[in-house]
């Protein structure tokens, strides 16, 4: 992981979660989920703090956190684009949507724009197969996408800023 010099998270925000779960066995994933909800991602100092409080080695905390796709270790942009990679979306052209997003924003799976506005993540099936190809931006689903339509949606979000 990167240098943690600037990594100063407010650890008190996590106190309630740790009090509730730290002595319940098998709760590491639950604690990590709550932590991500609080901080938006899992900063290194938070992971170390969780390890200390739960008496689980840091290596193990990291091992679990990096195993699951839900966990992030970098902050995400204001708008998180989740592009569905389900079979139906694949068959109906999700690759062309990914290309259109790259053309518009210059970012690929896992990246964030320099202005911190957009992040994109390729995700497993969102389950809206009949609307494929589909992307979800901050909880809102956009379906029946075409490359042009996807670009249009992103431009509108940009213009709102």
């Amino acid at each position, binding site marked *: 992981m990167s240098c943690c010099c600037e990594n100063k998270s407010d650890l008190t925000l996590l106190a309630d979660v740790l009090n509730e779960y730290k002595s319940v066995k098998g709760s590491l994933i639950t604690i990590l989920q709550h932590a991500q909800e609080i901080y938006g991602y899992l900063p290194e100092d938070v992971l170390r703090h969780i390890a200390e409080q739960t008496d689980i080695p840091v290596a193990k905390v990291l091992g679990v956190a990096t195993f*699951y796709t839900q966990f992030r270790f970098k902050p995400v942009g204001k708008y998180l684009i989740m592009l569905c990679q389900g079979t139906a979306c694949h068959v109906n052209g999700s690759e062309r949507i990914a290309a259109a997003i790259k053309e518009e924003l210059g970012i690929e799976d896992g990246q964030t724009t320099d202005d911190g506005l957009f992040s994109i993540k390729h995700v497993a099936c969102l*389950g809206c*197969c009949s609307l494929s190809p589909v992307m979800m931006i901050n909880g809102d689903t956009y379906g029946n996408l075409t490359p042009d339509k996807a670009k249009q949606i992103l431009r509108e979000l940009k213009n709102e800023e």
Partner: protein
Amino acid sequence: MVKYMKIAVGQGSCGIAAGAGKVYKALSEQGLGSVLAKTGCIGMCFLEPIVDIYGDDGQLKRLVKVSEADAEKIARFVKEGDEEAIRSLEISCEDSEFLTKQTRIALRNCGIIDPENIDEYVARGGYSAIEKALDMTPEQVIETIKVSGLAGRGGAGFPTWFKWNAARQSVSDTKYIICNADEGDPGAFMDRAVIESDPHNLIEGMLIGAYAIGAKEAVVYVRAEYPLAIERLTKAIAQAKEKGYLGQNILGKGFSCEMRIKAGAGAFVCGEETALIESLEGQRGMPRLKPPFPAQSGYWNEPSNINNVETFANVAWIITNGGEAFAEMGTENGKGTKVFALTGKVKRGGLVEIPMGKTLRDVIFDIGGGMRSDKAFKAVQLGGPSGGCIPAALIDTVIDYKSLSATGAIMGSGGMVVMDESTCMVGMARFFLDFTTKESCGKCVHCRIGTKRMMEILDRICKGEGKQGDIELLEELCVSIKDGALCGLGQTAPNPVLTTIKYFRNEYEAHIEERKCPAGECVELISYSIDPEKCRGCSLCAKKCPVSAIDGVIKQPHKIDTEKCIKCGNCKAVCKFSAVVCE
């Protein structure tokens, strides 16, 4: 005049994505009062948002593809009986056959009741099965399930009664019943629909299972990607507890069982039962060696029984109606019904529940209405990354465990993705291998590295860099991965490759030998050109080209600069004269 008792807006995830939430809000602003209600997913995803209007004469008016702007028309119909107002929104006879040709057991309440209201579930006979089961002995419950022939709906098709019996026989004070709702197969959403639309049915099925094996604690492991399912199940558990169907001394019959939800964190391998247990214990989701089986030593090393959502969704019905009634449906090799998530290039996509013994043709053409475009049906993919592609020639294959396995595919959990001639089968195999490569937990060498090597080979074939012997090398890797992997993920990962080689070998050969993609999908192997005979010189394609690769004089045939062309296909899509050729 007919009085309208209930106006129900379908609010499953895909309904909401299609705008059902906005429709509900618009309707609520029309002053329709208490008749306005929410329901789950009826399964006709292709017609969302859907509004059902129930009259006191027993008639149902189903309105489809409703928009916010239609709210006023619906209000006019409900208040003034103006049938004309909603005429254009009513479902067509053809589309309604999507439902009438199905037999619904697991989905029997979906889209009918309000999933957030326990009373509606009870009014349809809900929680009477647990009452009946508690008057039976656990052995009698297991016997009933045995008679029904119910088998695991998660994909493997293992007899449910056998697992229950094994867990029953294990001696321990603490046992667990666990529901696997980690529906990770890309292209499947049956389980999500059941939890979102009829959560009490799952709870009741699990309670009956808990009673049968002697468990006092039930855990539902739900994918984190299903927030609405988690929300509704949480509400349902609270309601069931309040009404005494869950918790201590259920229905005063001395049986106690608590239930909780555990949200997954995104790992396909956690659909494997021992990996799921590891994840429940807060570990990396890596499979354990079997035996011991979970029925002997599972969650916290106690006897545990794990079933899929759809399996549990059948249990209450079986207890109520008897094992024989369930076993009457289906074939020798598969009893009861199966739910499929029908998607892809099919005209009518959604949730389909049919008795086993029907054919793929019945589902894709009779219920699904055939292809969406005028292109020909090519293949259907069953079972996701663990399954395989069945070609058009085998469309009359009967749907049961044995018949589907004989094709090289599997029943799977229910994903059914329809493909037409524009889908490249090598590309399809690469898509699934890309998935399994990413999702392999890394424990077994053959799965971890073998899938990666297969992915690399498929990738180079799709790029036109395939070599002689690649197909044979793929086949060799398939065999060793199947043999060398500990769990179902690795053992079945080669299936998409094996079935596409088996049925579409010529497509692989065309990629390797002729450097051509017959489906016209692999970007590196295709090129676009304009047929000067057909081109009218309208210049629409030139306007739509994102890289200005098309040039020409108005009313004269245009030309594509293949050096500049990025093969996005925009020109082909916009040409009104079919002048753009893709080879």
